[in-house]
């Protein structure tokens, strides 16, 4: 069986003279992503320990299936850095449970969920059954991209997989919970978009004021959605507006 064989070495691909992509495969696959996170973790450790090999590294971007390492070309021998990254990847292994475990409130009321009824109908499910599937699943954050703070999450129950809207909306309201294909996300801002909207969270996905981590979520995090009613939604929204909200409260496993 292929899945039992020793994982192959990643491909080392240049993005000009300022970045390398270490590509573990060409598919969306939790096993590939675990290898991406394994290398990202090993590289973070090496950088924290002041490893001179990696001083030129300026940005490290995990995606579904690869890790892109951006560097300052004046501070690095690019080819040498590429070899060092390949060596690191050989010893790094996989890491699947590295991220934080979030529980994020979502209101599924009709006004926030314009596509929920259509989806339920198309799938032959009740509205409550769709909500139960969404709140019962654990979603894995593969990567942040498209726009700042926009998480691409896998783990959508197969019963809910659905293509994008044939005609994208001109304006998706900020903080809309959305699904498309086998993916789930939350729009950080109002923007055009073709994903199906199933609810809305009062919690911002992106806050520039959070200097250490403006993006709420990170690659490797896991997310569960918690259904809340409109009054609770408004309460949390007001608390966030008044600066009386702590992101830590969304991490119930952390004391």
């Amino acid at each position: 069986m292929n899945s039992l064989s020793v994982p192959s070495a990643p491909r080392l691909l240049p993005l000009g003279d300022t970045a390398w992509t270490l590509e573990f495969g060409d598919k969306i696959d939790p096993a590939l992503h675990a290898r991406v996170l394994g290398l990202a973790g090993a590289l973070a450790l090496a950088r924290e320990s002041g490893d001179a090999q990696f001083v030129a590294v300026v940005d490290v971007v995990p995606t579904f299936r690869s890790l892109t390492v951006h560097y300052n070309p004046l501070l690095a021998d690019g080819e040498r850095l590429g070899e060092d990254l390949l060596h690191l990847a050989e010893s790094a292994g996989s890491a699947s449970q590295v991220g934080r475990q979030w529980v994020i409130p979502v209101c599924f009321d009709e006004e926030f969920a314009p596509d929920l009824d259509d989806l339920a109908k198309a799938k032959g499910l009740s509205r409550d059954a769709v909500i139960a599937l969404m709140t019962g699943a654990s979603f894995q954050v593969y990567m942040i991209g498209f726009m700042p703070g926009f998480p691409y999450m896998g783990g959508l129950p197969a019963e809910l997989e659905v293509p994008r809207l044939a005609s994208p909306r001109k304006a998706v309201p900020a903080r809309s919970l959305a699904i498309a294909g086998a993916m789930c996300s939350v729009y950080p801002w109002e923007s055009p978009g073709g994903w199906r909207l199933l609810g809305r969270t009062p919690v911002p996905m992106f806050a520039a004021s959070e200097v250490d981590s403006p993006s709420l979520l990170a690659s490797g995090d896991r997310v569960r959605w918690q259904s809340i009613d409109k009054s609770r939604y408004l309460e949390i929204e007001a608390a966030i507006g008044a600066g009386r909200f702590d992101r830590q409260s969304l991490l119930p496993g952390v004391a």
Partner: protein
Amino acid sequence: MSGLLEVIDGGIGNSIQDTGRFGYRHMGITVSGALDSWLARCANALVGNAPDCAVIEIRAVGPTLQVTHGRIRVALAGELSATITRASGRSQQVAPWVSVTLFPKDRLEVAFLTGGTAYLAVSGGIRSPLQLGSRSTYQRAAIGGIDGQPLMSGQSLPCASQDHRQYHEYHSDPWSCAGGAACTVRVMLGPQHDYFKPQAIDTLLGCEYQVSAQQDRMGMRLDGPPLAHLTVQSADIVSDGVTPGCIQVPGNGQPIILLADCQTVGGYPKIATVISADLPLLAQMHPGQTLRFAAVDARQAKSALLAREAQWESWVGDMAFGVHNVAALYNDPTAAWDYVDDQSNEECDR
């Protein structure tokens, strides 16, 4: 000492930029920063700033600024000029590559730019708030600049006032790294050149491409012979990392070169990537202009970058200081020549 400029008219396409915002791309936050980083450094050098101070990047219609307080030295780098209207009502033309000192109520009106990119530097650099380690404007996330917005009327731009009456100014030769009318841009193949038919590589490296009018700080579309993907399916990839300079090719085969405000990940295959030494060439291209690509390897890319750095060192070494700004003297009745060395000029704080 602090100085303050008021934006009377923001113009079009102008933003505050510095050397960029690093360390946040894994959160989807692009690098931003000056499209032509060497030219931005030139503008800074012309007012006595450190090379990484924040400047105003001008892409189309220049802004109009008025001094609220302080004696503020300004300079333009690029192919454009400006008009100063002194508080007395007298007008004066300002060329690029020379600094000028402005006084309270003086107004600086920067002209049109017919294409490309130019920079306006002010003494001390634009001291808008640092956000996530940079002052660069990134409009999509509303960060950097003034409230994340492009330059617009009513904004106040903090900078530094000259400590002394230094009515002598900087001037230099024009900086140019442009390739001229038939510009050649050097690329390294990849990361996904194997998603294309072999003849697509020959097309990319053998044919001319025209810069289209569809361009902004995110990217630049080119028109030319289409680049054929290996199969219909290979026109899409599972999104992976991108960087400024990446040449992505969607299904229609027409290349798009990503620039400073590009997204952090993308789903089109990237046939090649422009080397860092040649990124400024892209910032200076006008719609309709022709360019060619040439492939280089990593070693050639590194020597091109070192050559560009050496060229800049030489340019800044040849810059002259001590040119008498007669107009400034004429304009300020209290002025006396004061040959204080310029070392006291405040360094920018990043």
